């Protein structure tokens, strides 16, 4: 069973997915961050592969991407850092990134390495569904990798059904028309959208991301989905942290209290 499915099958209460950029704040912090997140109670860990032009992300995550690249991070080096991942952590890990670095690494080789180190799924916001189905799906499937798709308030019901049909693991619900970190809090309009999607009875669980930053927004979002995703707020914490392990545990406490 894919570790992602296991989380949704077994978890009582909302699922917490935390995003961190690989190689940030320091080049060698990737595994430390993953371990601390796992120990602190994160249910799913999303690791960002840094890219020079992260168009779906706001300034906080772009800054983290740039710092990580300046420190020499690459897809190949990330896999080196993750080679002992599964000796230490059983929490599902998803790699998030943009399609060009993956293409240059080689799609088959990339998936093979993912399977080798124990990555469970991928989020590639600039890989369109049609291209995925035509060129990538069979390779992802062969290595047991789940490809997670995003929906936004503008995504039509037909397309949501189509995405649901071709998704495994969960559907990433973007909370508003926005890039990451652009907005905080949950408005009434957003709650209406959450309810609308909840009423569609999709086969996949949904996690709500973008604008989730604290206990309040985490619980609000989780009312209408299986859980939520925190990204920019966590990256902000890392960017000023003097003691990563301690701060991560405290951060998770504040979300899950």
């Amino acid at each position, binding site marked *: 069973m894919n570790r992602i499915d296991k989380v949704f099958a077994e978890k009582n209460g909302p699922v917490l997915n935390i995003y961190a950029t690989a190689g940030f704040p320091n080049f060698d912090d990737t595994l430390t961050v993953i371990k601390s997140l796992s120990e602190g109670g994160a249910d799913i860990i999303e690791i960002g592969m840094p*890219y*020079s*032009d*992260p*168009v*779906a992300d*706001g*300034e906080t995550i*772009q800054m983290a991407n*740039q710092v990580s*690249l300046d420190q020499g991070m*690459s*897809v*190949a080096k990330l896999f080196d850092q993750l080679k002992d991942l599964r000796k230490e952590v059983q929490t599902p890990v998803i790699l998030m990134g*943009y*399609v*060009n*670095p*993956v*293409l*240059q*690494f080689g799609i088959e080789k990339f998936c093979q390495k993912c399977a080798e180190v124990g990555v469970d799924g991928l989020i590639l*916001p*600039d890989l*369109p*569904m049609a291209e995925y189905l035509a060129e990538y799906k069979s390779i992802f499937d062969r290595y047991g990798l789940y490809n997670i798709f*995003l929906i*936004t308030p*503008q*995504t*039509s019901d037909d*397309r949501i059904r189509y995405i649901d049909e071709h998704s495994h693991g969960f559907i990433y619900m*973007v909370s508003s*028309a*926005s*890039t990451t970190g*652009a907005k905080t809090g949950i408005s009434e309009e957003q709650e209406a959208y959450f309810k609308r999607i909840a009423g569609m009875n999709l086969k996949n669980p949904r996690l709500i991301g973008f604008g989730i930053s604290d206990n309040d927004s985490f619980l609000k979002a989780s009312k209408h989905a299986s859980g939520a995703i925190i990204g920019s707020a966590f990256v902000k914490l890392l960017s000023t942290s003097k003691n990563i392990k301690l701060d991560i545990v405290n951060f998770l406490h504040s979300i899950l209290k």
Partner: protein
Amino acid sequence: MLYPNVEELRLNYLQIMQEPSFQKEFHDLLRDYVGRPTPLFKANRLSEKYHTTIYLKREDLCHTGAHKVNNTIGQILMAKRLGKNKIVAETGAGQHGVATATVCALMGLECIVYMGAIDIERQAPNVARMRMLGATVVAAQSGSKTLKDATNEAMRHWINNPVDTHYIIGSVVGPHPYPDMVARFQSVISEEIKWQLKEKEGKENPDYVIACVGGGSNAAGAFYHFLDATETKLIAAEAAGQGVASGHSAATTFLGKEGVLHGSRSLLMQTEDGQVVEPYSISAGLDYPGIGPMHAHLFKTGRAQFFAIEDEEALASALELSQLEGIIPALESSHALAVLPHLKAKKDEIVVINLSGRGDKDLGTYMKRLNLI
């Protein structure tokens, strides 16, 4: 995340463009507002120097000083028909930004232009033009603070404002249908060349069409109606900057490989790890790290021949055209002119060069580099 925005455009653009009312409004504005058709001018002294027959397609005489306005007129009419009341655009040197701010003023639509913070400093007159036209110019502070970052920011703005905003991309790049739509709007250039050449020379198809390529919008327009005319050789001039091997270049077909940026799969200047490389050219309109997918195809199939023109060659050609024909070209267009010494066209052959823009905006560079002060 941009799927709904792009899908709305993809499903509607061809139908809207084919509507007679759209065609009429588009062509009326091109005639009465832009000043089309632009002349096809036989450059006698330049022809004499290069022992061939050279025509200049005078896109520099378009309103706002470059071909960019052909596309922004088309796209603003498209935006209105899609029910949008706000426009976002990216700009490098500011030409596309000015052309966008111009049509927004004309149509009374709100206009936001993203421009790299470094470009805002380098191109102060165009920033002032946009502001005078009523546009809001926002500095892109991320990454390298130039054109590709302005494009990132404009895309983010569109992600954040998907319902009421249309994104006017200035080149034949970005997600489908942009490359095709922009090429169609710019194709008026080659459409005119055909009938103008027929009038002047008795034949529609020249032996050569030369255009500069950054993203490739003026070249797409100049090549469009000659793509199937195999007797016409298509020549693209890329910016080699300080030299293809210097590390300061924007010659994508020489330095790039296949990749994905801004929703296009095309040739892209990038590191081995797939990170986008910041290009360099003396001409701000040519320093985009990719080229449109159509041009990547023309390169791959050999239908177009690509030349890498260095800064110094472009500067020399700008001076040459100024003094031989009394026309000060834009630095971008000077790259197309600089192909002439390499071309070795025959006396009775006809060469059409797309003079995509005028040089006013580049006077600062010309003053410094050509010792005019």
